[in-house]
């Protein structure tokens, strides 16, 4: 049941439209700070571009994908049209409006603060209002997800929540709580300064509040990808979900440990005590657990597909897999990038190891490999899989899809491996200009050039992706049949209450928020003389 096709398609088109524009900006940034291009003379232009790139890629693009895919999951898995579709359109309109309102001041050079805000830099207030609109639009999605689930449960008392909806609701609840940190930072601390009501800001508190959002937001981006691992890929390649309770445990673990770990972004910040840094380091290590469970379950699910297709022996099932199927390719590429990215992440989360790569290009390489690599390649897969059902037209360019996925994967590796390496060599991030002529910096030059080549491949791949979608939109009409999700090898008829509801896990998340964030936030609120003068960017 896909009743709200136009709604979902609108979310996807706005997401991917913004994505391709921001991708051009990203490639331009790589190019002009490399040795291949001279100094542009005005760092402000660079930071303007970085702010637009980050705002689109981090706030607008994944939020719209999560919302659009989420509405699709709600309808397909619950088997009934979305309750509150008009509200969903309102949420979409808010995200679209917020995007425009935020991007205009960025384009005018009045908000070159990067998407992470970085107080005491203060941008034009319109930028923050735009971001707030985007987040409020996504909160409507959270509310609709919860309401639709409630309506379904009322009609199906005692039934297990369909797995896709269970996972989708985890994503919604995680985002609802995760977004609170940055929302409080913007509404309580930053906007009064941006509006001129006060001229000082407690930066330490602002950074801690942002860290509340900053790490778990990655898991919010990640959840649609994980849902696609479980609910799309096994069906698309002819397999089964190996264990649905295991899958549910992975998702509830994200709910518990994805959020109270954000202070690992502040390892070098003096305002947080090292005891809390250690605590967050430990919980960050735990977040590897749901990912390892997922890698295991999905590998087993894929093995089922390989064996059903006649694969024999220890490795024979691997060659029997449908490697020409874009979904199979996307999954394999995503896993490889998740593996590399996760291994790099172990360095970032280790309190002591982090100091060797903190604020270097390593970090930029890391989050591009995880987000733009492992996560976004599955967004492509989601779009490819759903497009015929959303447009009612065939998506025939299978060869082009494979080329697109291959180029994205190769481009991402060529882009991010040198990025990591120059980070180890000490190349700082967030700089508009590098002088490659000194003895310490000459060694970076060749790697940075390689990285630019990766950026170019990624850009070409992004354009190919849009071409595939447009061709799908123009193709002849077909009946794609009913859209459905993967089924489990042993579909559970009953589940323990803990794996069929959220209260326990939300409760643990809130409890860990109190233990891991309560004291640092209270302490920084009470710290006297902690506010510093705001620095208004581009005239404020």
């Amino acid at each position, binding site marked *: 049941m896909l009743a709200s096709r136009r709604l979902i398609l609108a979310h996807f088109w706005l997401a991917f439209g913004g994505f391709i524009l921001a991708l051009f900006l990203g490639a331009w940034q790589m190019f002009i700070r490399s040795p291949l291009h001279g100094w542009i003379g005005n760092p402000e232009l660079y930071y303007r571009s970085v702010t637009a790139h980050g705002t689109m890629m981090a706030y607008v693009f994944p939020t719209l994908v999560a919302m659009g895919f989420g509405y699709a999951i709600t309808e397909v898995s619950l088997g009934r049209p979305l309750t509150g579709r008009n509200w969903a359109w309102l949420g979409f309109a808010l995200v679209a409006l917020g995007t425009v309102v935020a991007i205009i001041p960025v384009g005018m050079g009045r908000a070159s603060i990067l998407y992470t805000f970085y107080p005491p830099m203060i941008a034009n207030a319109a930028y923050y209002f735009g971001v707030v609109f985007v987040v409020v639009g996504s909160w409507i999605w959270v509310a609709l997800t919860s309401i639709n689930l409630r309506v379904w449960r009322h009609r199906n008392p005692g039934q297990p929540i369909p797995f896709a909806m269970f996972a989708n609701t985890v994503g919604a609840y995680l985002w609802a709580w995760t977004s609170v940190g940055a929302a409080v930072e913007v509404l309580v601390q930053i906007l009064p300064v941006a509006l001129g009501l006060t001229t000082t800001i407690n930066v330490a508190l602002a950074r801690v509040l942002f860290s509340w959002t900053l790490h778990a937001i990655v898991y919010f981006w990640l959840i649609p990808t994980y849902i696609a691992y479980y609910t799309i890929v096994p069906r698309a390649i002819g397999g089964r979900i190996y264990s649905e309770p295991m899958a549910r445990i992975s998702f509830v673990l994200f709910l518990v440990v994805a959020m109270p770990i954000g202070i690992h972004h502040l390892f070098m910040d003096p305002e*947080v005590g090292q005891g809390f840094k250690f605590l967050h380091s*430990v919980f960050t290590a735990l977040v590897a657990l749901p990912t390892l469970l997922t890698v295991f379950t999905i590998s087993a699910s894929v093995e089922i597909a390989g064996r059903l297709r006649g694969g024999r022996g220890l490795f024979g099932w691997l060659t029997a897999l449908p490697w020409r199927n874009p979904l199979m390719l996307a999954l394999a590429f995503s896993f490889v990038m998740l593996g590399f990215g996760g291994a790099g992440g172990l360095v970032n989360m280790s309190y002591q190891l982090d100091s060797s790569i903190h604020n270097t290009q390593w970090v930029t390489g890391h989050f591009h490999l995880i987000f733009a690599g492992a996560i976004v390649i599955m967004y492509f897969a989601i779009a490819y899989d759903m497009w015929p059902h959303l447009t009612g037209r065939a998506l025939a360019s299978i060869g082009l899809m494979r080329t697109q996925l291959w180029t994205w994967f190769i481009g991402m590796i060529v882009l991010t491996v040198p990025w990591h390496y120059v980070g180890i060599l000490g190349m700082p991030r967030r700089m508009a200009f590098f002088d490659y002529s000194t003895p310490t910096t000459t060694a970076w030059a060749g790697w940075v050039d390689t990285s630019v080549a990766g950026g170019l491949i990624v850009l070409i791949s992004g354009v190919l992706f849009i071409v595939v979608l447009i061709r799908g939109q123009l193709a002849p009409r077909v009946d794609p049949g009913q859209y459905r999700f993967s089924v489990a090898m042993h579909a559970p008829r009953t589940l323990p209450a803990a794996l069929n509801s959220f209260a326990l*896990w939300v409760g643990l998340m809130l409890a860990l928020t109190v233990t891991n964030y309560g004291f640092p936030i209270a302490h920084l609120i009470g710290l006297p003389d902690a506010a510093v003068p705001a620095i208004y960017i581009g005239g404020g």
Partner: protein
Amino acid sequence: MQAQPLFSPRNPWFITSVIVTAAIALIAAGFGFIWLPLMERNTSFADVWTAICSAAGLTQSSPAPGVIVQPPARLSGVFLTASTLAPSDAVTIGRGATLALRCSMCHGARGLSQANSPNLAGQYAPAIYKQLQDFKSGARVNAVMSPLVADLTTQETRELADYYAYLPRPPSPQNGRVPEIVESGAPVRGIAPCGACHGPEGHKLGTPWLEGEPVAYLRAQLLAFKDGTRHNDINQIMRNVARQMTPAEIDAAAQFYGVRP
């Protein structure tokens, strides 16, 4: 299903998840707040509670300093704000013009030097005031200037600053393309663009306008900052910059700003 209550001590999911989460948090806290701080070699805590407070991020007052280390050379004590100098008027400018008679031998009758001394016409008043104060205090030393300003009062240094600031600034030299060191600095070596403080792009309080100063003077000052013989820059701003500059960059900056007499 759902008959079994979720939040019940008899629900193994509830009990296990709460106990495991709490155990991880407690053990991690034990390591992070007690064991690791006590293991630190360069800090010793009076008791366990102090260690916990430190790990929680509570700031401790530092011990009272025993001996205050004095810098080897006298440093600038001038403190400038936007309102340090009162607005000039005809009286202060006139008095400054009279006082300036003793300066004209080197700095020219109308503030334009013929002797590779700085041109002062149109210079920012706070910049002149600061340099005169530094000569007076000995933070900046010069065989000619130091004895000449020794007997000036603070009021007189203000009047001199007002007078020179009042004189018309010479036209900016047209020296072709802006060198990279002036426009962009050298971020990797921590050099801010010269132009951001000294013009033409921007100006910071207390820094001099450099356009039209003699090339020889500019080069000599950069070299003096570089080897530390001039040390009246606040917080070593100019010494840190000049130390990182290559001879070619010093030359390029001096040529760009300067005029040959």
